[in-house]
């Protein structure tokens, strides 16, 4: 079964995305910040990352930068999720190695489409 990691400091946001993903029959790994996510990325085989931008301890940009340094994470799909997406935010997201950019909240049907496209079930 495929696993998705939801990285967000807000429990509400994590439960929101998590509950949708679980309803698709996916494994969900939650992380409160980049640091926790990075630790969990070492243990679990993750097929898709949903990453918030602003988080305490380690923010989304730093997390992705670190993640991409791992040999087995060079191409794993990463979607950055933010409240409002400015062009320069997108630019920095692509620069650090995010694949896609989406505005919060991702509607269930959108999330479904992303999973269909990006994750091998």
């Amino acid at each position, binding site marked *: 079964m495929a696993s998705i990691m939801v990285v967000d400091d807000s429990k509400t946001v994590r439960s929101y995305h998590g509950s949708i993903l679980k309803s698709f029959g996916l494994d969900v790994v939650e992380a409160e910040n980049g640091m926790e996510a990075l630790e969990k990325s070492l243990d679990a085989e993750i097929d898709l990352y949903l990453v918030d931008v602003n988080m305490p301890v380690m923010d989304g940009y730093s997390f992705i930068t670190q993640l991409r340094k791992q040999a087995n994470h060079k191409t794993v*799909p990463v979607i950055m999720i933010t409240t409002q997406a400015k062009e320069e935010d997108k630019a920095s997201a692509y*620069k650090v190695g995010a694949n896609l950019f989406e505005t919060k909240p991702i509607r269930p049907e959108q999330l479904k489409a992303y999973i269909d496209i990006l994750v091998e079930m």
Partner: protein
Amino acid sequence: MDPLLEQFLGEARENLSFIDQNIEGIGGDDPELLNSVFRAAHTLKGGSGIVGFESVKIITHHAEDLLDMLRAGKLDFAESMTEVLYDAFDEVLNLIDAAEESGGIVDADEERVSSIVEALSQQMGKELEGEKAWALPFTLLDDSSQIINFPLDGLNGINSQKVAFLNKPIDESFVKEQNFYAVTFDIDESCMVYGNDPIYALSLLGENVIAISSCITDDNSKAILSGTEDEDGLLLKTQLNAFVYGTYEEIEEALFNFSDEIELLPLDIDTLLKVNYGDSGHAIDSLKELCDIADDFDLKTIASEVRNSLELVGSDTIQYAQLKRFLDIGGLIKEEDTSKLKTFFKSLFKGEVYAGMQDNLPSDEAPAPSQNQSESPEMDETTQEILQNMFQQQYKAIDFIENDEDLARVVSILDKMKKFMPEIPDTFSSKAEVSSFIANELGLESSVEEVSVEQVSEPIAQVKQENISSQEVAIEQNTVELIEEEKPSIKKVVPKKEDKKSIVGKTVKIDQESIDSLMNVVGELLVAKNSLPYLADNVIGMTHDVIKREIMDKYIFINRLSEKLQDLIMGMRMLPISYVFDRYPKLVRDISKKLGKKVKLDMSGGETKLDKNMIEMLADPMIHIMRNSLDHGIEMPDVREKKGKDSSGTVTLSAFAQSDKIVIQIIDDGAGINVQRVADKVLEKGLMTSEEIDKLSEDEMAELVLMPGLSTAEEITEFSGRGVGMDVVKKSIEGFGGTIGIKTTANVGTTITLSIPVSLAVTSLLHILMDNIHYGIPMESVSETVKIDKSEIEYLHNEPFIYIRGEVIPLLFIDSMLDKSDMEEKPLSIVVLNIKGNMLAVVVNEFLGQLDVVQKPLVGIMEAHPLFSGTALLGNGQIIMSIDPHGLLGISASLKLKEQEEVA
């Protein structure tokens, strides 16, 4: 320096000098004086808080408290208070000085600060923390209906009785712990004018503020929250309610500027959160719900979850009504949103958000992994949208591809998209290929595409080029970084160069009137300028005489205007000398305290105006002189009493204008300079011979202390007496065209007189001609010019002199500089000089009138020239040498000596 800090430092200085001058009188009968000192302290406290100057804030806060208690009559004035307040504000001044020097806020010596605070507290009768019975540090809201009526008034199902206000006694530990408070502000409508922004102050508490509302309208409170409130709105007198979660200390810290205006009401969170299900007729209670989601009962966490939820849903589509209760506290939600919120939270909590919609989805089955690539699965609209969106995003991401890894990442996404879009090729070899493919798919006709068409025919060359270009990009970026790195380092150096201690801020306040008159003069100048082309047009056909007259006319007009302009601008540069004087009360107190002497400082003439630059330059020499007076002049109290003087000495500082000079006198009633000892020292050091000393008058003897390398103090103290004292002072005073004089009487005191030009910028010279060379003599030394027939010259002991109104004035011929042939058959042109009371008549070839010039000092090998003090430019570009009158005296003296030798 941070401009805000700079402004604060400037203001603080003003306030401190005001306090300093008036603190002595706070015990007097004038309540207004005490009030104004209090206000100055209050302003200081407010400003220091805004710029974050913690130590200053702490000190001024306590000083203000003391002043406030005096003001309110809660305390009786005691002499010792003045001492303590002086100490407190002196320390603030020290901190301000240090901040100015370092260009930023400095850390204070904590021990010093706490000892000052302790002293202030003792004056207030307060014991230090912990030693006294604990008292509630804040004002309790006596009318809790204020909170109940607003904004909880409109709560659905929860009336005021159910919102639990704290009933248990408030003790010390309650105040120290984080608690939930309702804070009400009765904001003075003028607070914004004084820069006290309550919303900003609240924002310092960050996430601890759970809601803010104003009493005006709900809309208004929303506007305040979103920061769109206009200025007029905030000028309204209003009441603000805020719900803050924190310790009292944190709240007080952020809102210290409003400490008089706020009232607190502790709320009981536990009860607030434990409202029973069904009590209000609601199936689910939002706060309860939120608590479960947030896994704890920490209101702060809940508040941040509420924010996140708002973020999640978007403020325009508020669809979850179970937040209503919570949001109602802030008056933020409308009645009709309740049901929507309710559904949302109910379903969210049960993880059913998506479950409900799944039936509606066209295909519940996820695409099978075994799906054939050629066969694309059915696509709903959303998937199509997402695919399109992904394409667009990848197209943008291409711009950020710098290496193979980046490329692989983009390609991997395209790979994944392939199962829905079979047209995507299996492999991509380069960035350009990806770019052209996506552009094509998106229907973009880009230049990239054209390039790629060429490149497809030459794939190998293209790949190479790609590598090169990416390298180039990298290089470019490196250089950009380098440049950026250099910038800050340059910036760092520049302020260091300008780091010269400046007493006066770099800004000058100018009154409206000056600007207006400046404007008028500039207007006239424009008119005058316009008349010149007119004259040029009409010059043909005019005789030379007419042209000359016309030009002279214009010259006179323009000259008058430029003089006016100069006066006006110089006037703007003028500042009261109090800028320098204001620093001395503290200096005197500091030094006399350390020396154990009692000294009173009298100042007068602080309003005398002086050029800004001059004020800067005066500061250091003046300090030196003051230190000398305190250290060597004023005696110890017991010595003074033995001499029959008042035990506390007096130093008088006075400034006044005298023609185009400003005279500053520093008078002490101390021991006076021991002239004999100075003379002995001079002899001992071999600076002069005893014959030379014998010739000196009493005053001249005193001025021997100005000679380099002399110190008469037996002991070297911290403040003065390193032997590099007065000569340096003399040099710097003379450096900007001033003079220094000393008069001293044993056991009566010493008077030091500084006489300095009002402005540095422009000097008036008497323009003279000697042997066809132009010279200038400073007008301040010129007493008059006369023409005298040679026959009127008299001789005494072979020395020439002239009589002017009965006064005998020695006459100086400088043979080597004069054109003697020109002087035959003509009366002699003589300039009569008054050099520090010494009269001297100097023969010149011709006087040409008065000149106003910008004088430049001599530099290099000419620097210490005995006769010339500077140069200036004439209107025609010719250089004019400015003669130092003292130099002329020197020549006169050496000529005498020579003659005497010849006679001998």
